[in-house]
């Protein structure tokens, strides 16, 4: 399991109800179910991934977060997870609102567009960045709304969303993000992991 998932799992208390939006092949959900006695649900757009989740005994609904999140009642989960998917939505703001409606806490991770390699790509190559975390070309990327760690922090502040925990990940190394180191973390982190609440 990748480092990002270990960090997310550590942010979640035992015996809670968790919805993973865009749960992929269910690796994280299975880990939470088996190790933390979590009551898990998933929402996943790919039929193939839903099949894999079914074979793992996970309850996953085939669907699209932008359409199908609305069916979940208010506060029906303790946590909702959105791992590296926010940038692929038409209306990310609406999705964040929905996440914080269906759960008390949301854990959102974003590939950081402010990472220095990404910046250099554009600065020196003059082409849209292609990196380990952003492997697609501009014409076939599912990503519509890329943002940086700083963008996301600003967004939360503007919307009065409480940043309960902000974590930066670079090459498996974990560090905390705070107001003092934000510029540096924004430059040197590949991934931002945020635990947010209303």
């Amino acid at each position: 399991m990748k480092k990002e998932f270990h960090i997310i799992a550590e942010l979640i208390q035992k015996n809670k109800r968790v919805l993973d939006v865009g749960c992929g092949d269910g690796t994280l959900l299975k880990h939470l179910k088996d190790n933390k006695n979590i009551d898990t649900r998933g929402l996943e757009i790919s039929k193939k991934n839903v099949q894999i989740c079914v074979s793992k005994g996970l309850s996953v609904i085939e669907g699209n977060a932008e359409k199908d999140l609305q069916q979940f009642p208010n506060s029906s989960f303790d946590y909702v997870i959105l791992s590296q998917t926010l940038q692929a939505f038409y209306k990310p703001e609406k999705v964040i609102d929905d996440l914080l409606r269906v759960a008390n806490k949301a854990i959102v991770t974003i590939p950081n567009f402010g990472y220095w390699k990404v910046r250099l790509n554009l600065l020196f190559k003059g082409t849209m960045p292609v990196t380990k975390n952003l492997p697609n070309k501009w014409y076939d990327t599912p990503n519509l709304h890329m943002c940086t760690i700083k963008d996301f922090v600003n967004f939360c502040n503007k919307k009065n969303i409480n940043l309960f925990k902000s974590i930066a990940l670079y090459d498996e190394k974990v560090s905390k993000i705070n107001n003092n180191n934000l510029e540096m973390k924004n430059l040197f982190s590949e991934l931002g992991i945020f635990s947010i609440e209303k």
Partner: protein
Amino acid sequence: MNNIDKVKTIIIKKPLKLDCGKTISNFPLAYETYGKLNEKKDNAILVFHALSGDQFVTGINPITNKNGWWTHLVGPNKSVDTNKFFVICANVIGGCMGSYGPNSIDPLTNKKLGTNFPVITINDMVNVQYNLLDHFKIEKLFCVMGGSMGGMQVLQFVANFPNKTKTAIPIACTASHSAQNIALNELGRQAIMADSNWKDGDYLNLKNSPNKGLSVARMAAHITYLSQKGLQEKFGRKLQERDDLKFSFDADFQIESYLRHQGSAFVDRFDANSYLYITRAMDYFDLVKEYKGNVSDAFKKTKVKFFIISFTSDWLYPTAENKEIIIALNAAGADVGFIEIKSDKGHDSFLLEVPDFLITIKNFLQANY
């Protein structure tokens, strides 16, 4: 139908009040089983059949000598593995494969009941089949599953008996029969009743049956089980054993010949009155109304693990209607998974060899047993 007396039945002695208000008792419920019930009695799967199905899920149906309707899915080493699971399926009441229905004899008149049989509902069907749990002394089923009308029975079963199954798989169904589906059922019923042999349902005591009417009903229904794309690919405008159009009303096209065959084969194994009663039960199915506008109340406290399956080309019970069930289950905080299987075979997909469907069922059962 020959050998119909040889099907397995239990006699249900306890009086049951039907939704129509009438009470029935001392009536037969025909069933079949596959595999063995284990010592812990935790490996039982109750399968519910659809409109034209019966209790003979797999293997050779001893009455029709044809393959069971879910032979692709159920059997030794298949998705529903009868080496592992004990599969039970009953003929619904109102049916014509040995259960209490319009074919049954009225002891007062010694004549077949015909339309004197009471109008039954999905709820009635399910309440009757619940007796099978007592019969086999099963405290809790491992799974209830079924497609189309079978799926409606799955939903009704969990609503009525929330602690009596561990898992539930409603396939290609709905929580509330749509206007389009009521319309299509009415078309079939009118075809039967327009046949002069129907005689207000009393044909069973006379010589001739309304075979033409039932056949037309089946032809119309069969079209609704397929998809435009599936029909086009399979038949297109291909001609039936001829080089050119005959400028007549014979079956020039293969699709015409195919439908005529479907119609005439159906009358050999199905009863026209049963068709009226069962389609009526489907039309009356409305969990939304039963739970006063809030289907999620039907599943309020259930711990049952649901898995819902729909098919992309099914326009009879489309994905959108299946999703209504998921929404209700989510609103109740129930445990639910869902997949829409890609298939060009329309509503019939659940009865056919659709690999993704067969694998999904296999994986779900394996992962949860």
